[in-house]
């Protein structure tokens, strides 16, 4: 027996990376469950596909890099990426698109940059953006909420659509998306955007079936669920408050000003806050520690930047939702933000030109 030599500190708090990742997963579950409730089994299947591909890719690449993949897989980071990606995908996306996305997230956006901790961009968002850019039609084919749908589908249908493109009864995805009048049901964001571009006023745009008091049915509750999950994360100190607060605050502020200036042209801030992936983005995506800013002031800036970009892209951009683009764009700015928001170290006076 010999004495064990170790460097101080000898005592450690017990929270591990894997725990942190799992915690984030758990907190996202309520929202995910609601999403499944509103939009059917598809999302769950997407998650399974994404998880299998993500873990497989991670193992494969770690093996190629001659690293111990069992250990790396157990940290749950790939699982979290898969979950976030699945949440973002339309429920009945063809399986191979999901697979490409998951592969892209882990293989290109994460492992090519050096694996966990070294990736510049949020893997799930990179994958989502890639898919959105590559397959714009498939990626915006959201179903209407199940209770509004002409053809509600069950688990078998979902499987069948995802893997073959048609339900057992022969309905295609497009047919599933149609409402009673034969019009496809876009997401609220999409609908508002399209209608506004067609010259309709906001009021006219939001008077359609999938809207309820100006807010999208389903999306409202889903966002609330993610908000709740995010608050739990905050409470458990898994994430810090700066990013969500500054991001939501900026959305509220910018969208509010725009809405007040031209209520007919710009959606209300509540619509922005509670539709699309706003809450998910604020609490689960933008707060991804690896790709977010690491200083307190930096986080405020980072969140504000995302908020601003979200409103701008949603209003004037070419794609309906903007969380992914905003997050990826701000990821790019993180090193710069971090550099210029370094905290003042004890005993150092603030110098001009060198923060």
């Amino acid at each position: 027996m010999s004495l064990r030599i170790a460097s101080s500190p000898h005592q450690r708090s017990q929270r591990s990376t894997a725990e942190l990742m799992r915690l984030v997963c758990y907190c996202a579950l309520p929202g995910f469950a609601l999403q499944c409730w509103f939009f059917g089994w598809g999302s769950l299947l997407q998650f399974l596909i994404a998880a299998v591909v993500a873990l497989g890719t991670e193992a494969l690449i770690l093996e190629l890099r001659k690293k111990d993949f069992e250990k790396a897989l157990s940290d749950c980071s790939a699982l979290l990426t898969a979950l976030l990606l699945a949440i973002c995908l339309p429920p009945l996306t063809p399986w191979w698109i999901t697979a490409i996305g998951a592969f892209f997230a882990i293989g290109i956006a994460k492992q090519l940059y050096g694996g966990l901790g070294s990736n510049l961009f949020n893997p799930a968002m990179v994958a989502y953006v890639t898919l959105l850019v590559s397959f714009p039609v498939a990626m915006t084919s959201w179903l209407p909420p199940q209770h509004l749908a002409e053809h509600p589908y069950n688990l078998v249908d979902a499987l069948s659509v995802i893997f073959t493109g048609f339900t057992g009864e022969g309905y295609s995805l497009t047919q599933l998306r149609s409402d009673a009048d034969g019009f496809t049901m876009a997401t609220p964001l999409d609908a508002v955007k399209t209608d506004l571009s067609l010259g309709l006023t906001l009021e006219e745009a939001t008077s359609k079936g999938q809207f309820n008091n100006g807010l999208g049915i389903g999306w409202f509750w889903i966002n609330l669920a993610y908000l709740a999950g995010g608050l739990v994360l905050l409470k458990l100190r898994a994430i810090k408050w700066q990013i969500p607060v500054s991001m939501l605050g900026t959305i509220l502020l910018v969208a509010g000003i725009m809405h007040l200036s031209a209520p007919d042209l710009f959606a209300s801030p509540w619509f922005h806050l509670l539709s699309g992936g706003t809450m998910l983005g604020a609490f689960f995506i933008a707060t991804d520690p690896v790709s977010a800013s690491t200083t307190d002031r930096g986080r405020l800036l980072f969140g504000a930047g995302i908020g601003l970009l979200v409103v701008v892209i949603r209003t004037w951009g070419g794609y309906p939702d903007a969380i992914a683009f905003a997050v990826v764009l701000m990821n790019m700015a993180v090193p710069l933000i971090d550099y210029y928001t370094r905290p003042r170290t004890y005993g150092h006076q603030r110098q001009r030109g060198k923060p």
Partner: protein
Amino acid sequence: MQSLIDKIRQGRFFDFPGGVHPPGRKTLSNQDVIGKCTLPEHLYLTVKQHIGAPGQLQVKVGDEVLKGQALTRSTNPFALPVHAPTSGKVTAIAPHVSAHPSGLAELSVEITPDGRDKWIDLTPIPDYQQLPKTRIIEAICDAGIAGMGGAGFPTHIKVSPKKDVEFLVINGAECEPYITADDRLMREHAWQIRQGIDVLCHLLNPGHVLIAIEDNKPEAIQAMQVACQEKPDYIICPIPTKYPAGGEKQLIQVLTGREVPHGRLPIDVGIIMQNVGTCFAVADVIFTGKPLIQRVVTLTGEAMTKPCNVWALLGTPICHLLKHAGYEKAQQGVQRLIMGGPMMGFSLASEQIPVVKSTNCILAPTQQEMTLPEEEQACIRCSACADACPVNLLPQQMYWHSKAKELDKAQDYNLFDCIECGACAYVCPSQIPLVHYYRVAKAQIRQQEEEKQKADKARDRFEARKQRLEEEKAERELKHQQAAEARREAMHKQGDDPKSKVAAALARARKQQTSDETTAAPETADKVAAAIARAKARKAAVQQGDSAPSDTADTAAEDKQAKVAAAVARAKARKAATQQGHAAPSDTADTAAEDKQAKVAAAVARAKARKAAVQQGDAAPSDTADTAAEDKQAKEATASKSKTTKQVKPKDKVSTQVTAADTPVKPAPADDREEQKRQRVAAAIAKAKQQKAQKDRQQASSTADMPAEKVAQPLVEVDEQKKQRVAAAIAKAKARKAKLDMQSSADNQQDKTDE
């Protein structure tokens, strides 16, 4: 200003950023009064136990020392003495494993107690207020008091500041988990601590005295309040419990909201901080005269059956204390001992490490209470470390740069402001030993700076040397030029008198030879030869394996051969000399002066030298002893030359064995001429000998010498190593032999010459 002190009085403190709340676990050891420990078998007093220079040793092995007797003396302001913790005998002064994270051995005095525990005469100075301050400071210095909080900064320097002291802060925060040494000390000796504070106040004359105690030690706070009742300007400050509130800079920030500027000392913001333990020790010195020979050490951790605080003599090996506290290694699983607290302490490499002045805790945790460090995982930039950092650093950035060895960038992130409190590594979810990375990086940076300085110095020295050499060369050239000019002038004066030229040449030769002789005076020369032979032997031994000189017969034969060869060489040289007319080498032509005699002499000498060299080269393993023999022969020859010349003045060409040099001597008209010539010949011979010896050395081993004939017989059988050793011995002997031979065979040689 007033508002600040009001604020403090009201118990409203500032906060420092970050910090962590590790479980305190202080109740483990703070239940009982500070115990006494038995005398250990040996005490090991590390000579340097503080920051600064070691003191000068005052004792030697075998000395009897009394308790409290100084073992070292302070010789410079940063040196502190250490004292014998008990009476006994100095049994050793040698490196002993020290209380340092490296576990390196440092010079220590080992004392074997005699059990009497007899004090030396003590000189307390209770009337310190009447004495000059320097006297008190001297007493503190002589008592060897260094900061007892952990760093070990000499106290006497701290209490003699050059600036006004606004706050004297007494640090009883003890923010590290587990440690209760200061806690117990305050509870039990509050009065004496207060006396120590009085002394410090007398020295420092501070505006206010703040006694900072973390609010998780209510008993200690109460005890100190009672002790300080009659001193209204002593303010007890129960500060909020947060690690590392007890760090010097953090405590200053908590109490006053001030920050010590980077690279400065607390006194620069008008604050002096002393540990409560230091105050206690100061009181000890002043009122009882006892130097610092013991301190309170917390023995704790769940692997101890009786965790407690104990008065431990400095130098007590840890194992002795462990026994006292009932340490059970079986409970530990993986054994580990930590000196200091769980956050900043270091793990011990040996149980023999002694207690030093800054040892406040020995921690023996079980695996359940402190899990072993797991394998480090990838940093996910969660910045939990930055949130925990009490000095607002960005630990993860420093970690990236330290790990990538981008040391300048790490420094750019203020690496050197890190106080190594361990809060960052404590919270890291990826189990990264951040502090360790910083320590390594800091050490590397320091080393690099040191190396840089050394490189600069080396460059300077190299350039200075280059310059010097150039100057010397220039000087030499100048001298040569002058000499040449002088010669030319002389030549002008003497016209084309060939004799003068020859004379000059001879003079040069003589000069050279004499200088040769002076540098290689016979005795030294022998020594040198021996040394060189030794070295060669060593080298040969290394190279051995393929060379075959271990064969004795061969050696003998070769030896003979060498002799023969030498003889042949001589004969040839002689022949060459006699036939110089047609056999003169081409190169003699250019030196050929008008003077025939000189020409002859030169040619002969050169030819002989060359021949000898070549011959000896062929006769491969001829040896140094042989050389010596030849040398002797040559000397003999020259010595007997005058005789010979006298004897055989009208000599015929072939009849004698006289060395070749003699031949041209024959027609020499004058005695001094002869003398000169002799010298030249001797020089030539010496040169030849030298060349030969060199060649020999290159290819032959030293075994092939004359005495080898006798000794080398068993060499064939013995193993390689022995051979080598024998060879070396032989080589050494050879030189001696050669010397003897030189004398003994003188007659023989004489005969030969005469023959």
